[in-house]
């Protein structure tokens, strides 16, 4: 891949995180990767170019985690499913920036309350992409407010307490 074309490196498998290009000088060790919101996992890496939509990446990994959830504890069993649905809505242009706060809140809840490592780390791809690539989320969410765009207005899917 030519210089400057790397957008992110995903480490730690589906429950790891996406590290942006400007942090590529980080050493590959447990502590450094965890500090960046990712993890070592199997040590594998996925290198992504500028064409990559980080919301799609998060959606893809959440699809995996929701399938892999064993179903024993509620936060992981039901939380990963709702996270996946939220990301699907965002990708479909049916979400607003306010939905990102709900996404983040649910991520933190699943992380804090899940019984095992799968649920505790399943939100990592979402949280790390929200942290390092907010513009990707803003782009999809911003489009939802464009009346020219196909798709329902955001208020028809959002029910606030």
């Amino acid at each position: 891949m030519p210089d400057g074309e790397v957008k992110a490196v995903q480490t730690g498998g589906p429950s790891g995180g996406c590290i942006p290009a400007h942090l590529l000088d980080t050493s590959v060790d447990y502590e450094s990767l965890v500090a960046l919101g990712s993890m070592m996992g199997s040590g594998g890496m996925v290198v992504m170019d500028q064409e990559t939509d980080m919301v799609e990446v998060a959606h893809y990994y959440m699809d995996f985690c929701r399938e892999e959830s064993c179903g024993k504890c509620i936060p992981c069993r039901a939380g990963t499913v709702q996270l996946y649905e939220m990301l699907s809505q965002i990708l479909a242009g049916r979400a607003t920036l306010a939905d990102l706060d709900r996404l983040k809140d649910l991520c933190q809840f699943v992380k804090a309350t899940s019984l095992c490592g799968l649920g505790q780390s399943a939100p990592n791809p979402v949280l790390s992409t929200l942290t390092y690539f907010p513009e990707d989320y803003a782009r999809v969410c911003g489009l939802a407010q464009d009346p020219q765009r196909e798709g329902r207005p955001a208020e028809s899917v959002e029910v606030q307490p």
Partner: protein
Amino acid sequence: MAVEAGTTLLKAAQAVGIAIPVLCHLEGVSDVGACRLCLVEIQGSSKLLPACVTEATEGMVIQTQTPTLQQHRRLIVELLFAEGNHVCAVCVANGNCELQDLAIAVGMDHSRFPYRFPHRAVDISHPQFGIDHNRCVLCTRCVRVCDEIEGAHVWDVAQRGEHTRVITGLDQPWGDVEACTRCGKCVDACPTGAIFRKGTTVAELARDRSRLEFLVNAREKREWTR
């Protein structure tokens, strides 16, 4: 406060009159720490720990009702309501349901998550009992009560993730499972209206938890009194 070694945080809190919400916990059977409702904050620990399976240790300082815990508990109940098909108005357990009680206790008047409306089955092949999977919250109390108290192990858990469900026998119709002794302990253990006696209609479900408590007490303390 001082408690006997090996006492769980849940028991210790109960001893001093502090109620911690539970769903998968059932007096008399083993704990699995699965519902996460009883998570508590422990000073010096960054992780929230389930009170039902965490033993009290010397000098432990725990918080059972912080704003964070209250938010988590409400989210858990919301996720449960969105995950199944819980329609109180037509349920045998209406007014006698632990899920309903929990919703009230955590202040959940509606779910902020879209309802999933899963397609789930109802099995009424058993001559006395039925199971409506729409109302199941997967607490696995039926699995544990049947295995540990009755010793029949009719119930088990199949599939995974959102497709998880409790099964009878080797995923057979309940009525075909010869191991079932028709004792009805699963009906008494179920927190919702998922497992019911046939013939009961809306809001008629009655449970006899004292029967389970009697058996456990008799077994553990050799006291055969009711």
